[in-house]
């Protein structure tokens, strides 16, 4: 990398004169600190790390990086689980990492319209807390919501337990102000229902930092439900839990959330959180229904009846907010609790048609056995979104390899069972080379075409999402034939 060269020094100098020098850092500590995300296993190296405060400062950073020909890596809190924010040097040039965490203001809340404009560094849970007194919340609720940014949620089109009935981030983003790779400011989408032009907002949401940097986001706020009932169910087998999920969906009641945990993870979490989970059950389901008082009574009764019919060994309804909160804390600390089992964990988030959940979970266990690794299962079961987690010791090279091999096999299994590679964590670096399992070459070239619409020079977060081979090369030729300019 070109870290010590004159070019690099003058890049840093230019950035420091554009931003306050204290907000442009390139010491070895930042190099390492911003060289990874929560995937852990993929490490890059941040060349220079910038902390802008405004859209204009982001523009400055992007323009300067462009002038020096260095790649730009947008970054929020770094909680991503697919290596999306890992800075990969491009042709040896040190990446300019643009961290949005200091852009953390809620700019405007329109209570009547139920819309908020926020800066990208606002933490997911902070937004919900700030609008709670208005009876509103931001519905996408990744388990990392205390730490992850709304900019990161937009870039990854993040999900969460309650996305079963409320939809993922894309359904809650109305408009995005974006600093494009050439430093210009774009406005994608709008607050009105049918904005002019193509739905570029939809292209940007889930683009994993490859199409520009979100600098302001208009999100939809959702009313807090008048009533909620949370049901904790214990099952004698994984199958009976998964069958309960399918049967609930088949009744026509769509719960707000339907989360599954197997026995091993339940035990680990219970030791950690002391939530009173039924540790004797082979699997537990946390089902939440919301709506009007009468509707939730009815839905909770249906859920309990189906569970009973599927031989549930325990069934409890949270009687107060404290119980509900601790059950959710238990679910949302599942990954953290794994530290008790092994120093590292590897996690996939493949998704399958929900009717194939049971057989897929069984095959996941078979794969783990065949690689002699342990797997524990958490799942956003209502969406068919698996989270098989493999605890391991990363210092052991052999284990490391087996764990990653098993992970790849699990991702391939999800596609073979009619699903997809990732339900919410994104492709990033981690699953990039598996994209060919889900898509053909032409499909991937078409996705590259969409990326090039925003970033013709491939400056933004290079080497992510699409495998290196899938490059759309014909656009330039065809445009030339049509007498049109390239960018």
């Amino acid at each position, binding site marked *: 990398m070109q870290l010590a060269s004159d070019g690099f020094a003058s890049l840093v100098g230019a950035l420091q004169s554009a931003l306050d020098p204290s907000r442009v850092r390139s010491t070895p500590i930042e190099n390492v600190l911003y060289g990874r995300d929560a995937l852990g296993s993929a490490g890059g190296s941040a060349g220079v790390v910038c902390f802008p405060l405004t859209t204009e400062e982001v523009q400055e950073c992007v323009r300067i990086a462009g002038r020096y020909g260095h790649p730009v890596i947008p970054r929020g809190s770094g909680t991503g689980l697919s290596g999306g924010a890992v800075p990969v040097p491009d042709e040896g040039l040190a990446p300019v990492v643009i961290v949005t965490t200091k852009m953390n203001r809620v700019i405007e809340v329109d209570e009547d319209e139920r819309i908020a404009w926020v800066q990208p560094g606002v933490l997911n849970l902070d937004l919900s807390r700030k609008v709670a007194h208005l009876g509103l919340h931001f519905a996408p609720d990744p388990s990392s919501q205390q730490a992850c940014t709304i900019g990161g949620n937009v870039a990854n089109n993040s999900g969460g337990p309650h996305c079963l009935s409320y939809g993922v981030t894309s359904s809650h983003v109305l408009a995005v102000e974006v600093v494009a790779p050439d430093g210009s400011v774009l406005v994608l989408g709008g607050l009105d229902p049918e904005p002019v*032009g193509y739905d570029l907002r939809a292209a940007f949401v889930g683009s994993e930092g490859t199409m520009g940097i979100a600098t302001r986001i208009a999100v939809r706020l959702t009313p807090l439900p008048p009533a909620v009932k949370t049901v904790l169910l214990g099952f004698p087998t994984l199958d009976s839990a998964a069958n309960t999920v399918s049967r609930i969906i088949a009744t026509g009641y769509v719960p707000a959330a339907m989360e599954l945990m197997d026995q091993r993870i339940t035990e680990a979490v219970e030791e950690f959180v002391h939530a009173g989970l039924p540790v004797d059950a082979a699997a537990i389901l946390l089902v939440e229904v919301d709506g009007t008082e009468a509707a939730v009574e009815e839905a909770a009764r249906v859920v309990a009846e189906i569970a009973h019919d599927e031989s549930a060994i325990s069934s409890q309804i949270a009687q107060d907010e404290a119980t509900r909160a601790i059950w959710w804390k238990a679910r949302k600390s599942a990954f953290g609790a794994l530290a008790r089992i092994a120093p590292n964990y590897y996690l996939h988030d493949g998704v399958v048609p929900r009717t194939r959940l049971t057989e897929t979970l069984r095959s996941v266990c078979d794969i783990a056995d065949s690689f002699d690794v342990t797997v524990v299962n958490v799942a956003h079961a209502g969406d068919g979104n698996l989270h098989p987690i493999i605890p391991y010791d990363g210092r052991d090279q052999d284990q490391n390899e087996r764990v990653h091999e098993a992970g790849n096999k699990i991702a391939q299994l999800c596609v073979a069972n009619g699903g997809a590679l990732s339900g919410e964590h994104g492709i990033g670096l981690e699953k990039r080379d598996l994209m060919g399992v889900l898509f053909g070459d032409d499909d991937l070239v078409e996705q590259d075409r969409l990326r090039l619409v925003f970033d013709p020079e491939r400056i933004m977060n290079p080497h992510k999402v699409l495998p290196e081979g899938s490059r759309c090369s014909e656009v330039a030729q065809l445009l030339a034939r049509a007498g049109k300019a390239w960018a």
Partner: protein
Amino acid sequence: MKESGSVSRSELELFAEEVGPEGPVCIVGGRTHWEVGGLPDPSAREVRAPSGIVQVLPDEMMVRVRAGTPLRELIIALEEKGQMIPVDVDQQGSPTIGGALSVGWSSIRRLRWGPIRDLVLEIRYVNAAGKLIKGGAPVVKNVSGFDLPKVFVGSLGTLGCLAEVVLRTQPRPRVAKWIVTEGNPFEIRKQLFRPSSILWDGIKTWVLLEGSGREVQAELACLREHFEEVDAPPHLPKGKRVSLRPSAIKQYATSLAPSSYVAEIGVGLVHLDSNVQSTPPGMALSPLPPGSIVDPALQDGGSDTMRTTSTAEPTLGASLPTPTLAVHKRLKDFFDPMGRLNPGRSLL
């Protein structure tokens, strides 16, 4: 190629051959919205997407359907399995699912069920080079790669020819009840938790409530206004659709004669007859972020400021800022470098 999950593969390939790699083509559905975006060049060769329902999967809340399938046929097939998609079809013509997605207009039940773009999970389309392309996947939640399916919604057949789609469906609500009242529609919205639709013509307000019988009863119990049950929503004027940020409807309505329009409250669409003056002078609505309202705290690093009402000056029919317009144009250019797909038709 990978496992397609589709039983209609060869038919899709035939369609790809028909579209081919050269010469102007225009893709035709039921021609019910043919004039939207302007008429295509008459010399363009007409092509039609294959038709037929491939699979209804109620347990997955999904349907795989060829793009040329008449919407009415799809709605009936879903009804038989207790499912639905939120689209509206009236009596005239035979609109297709490919046409509905390409026009991209959402149902009047959008308030509850979301915009039509959120229905699309997977698309198969023929691109400008005549190749059959897949985007998305047949699962309700998916972030594997870029979201081509949503970009195609509302693209008026200018980016590719839809051949087959997988849509998310919903269990059909057991009860659907329209009521009418003279209450203030904005207040009514606050009183209800999940109304499916609130329509207002300046005098009367129509509300659609859907769900189980108890759910609908519980919602009705929250209404403080006097109301009556009715069989159907009001007739929607078909001349023009005006898209506003939802809070701007109140102000906009003051320039219209009561009963000359129907507004979708909470959504921001106003349906008008074509002879109604739709852009009152001095009023405009912008999709722009509140550039003029940059939080003063941003500059001085102070604490957050919260505003509870919008101060953004609305600007109607706003044109796109230049850099944004350039990206829209580039999308068309990159997906259709030779300009052969629906030539003459434009979104911009």
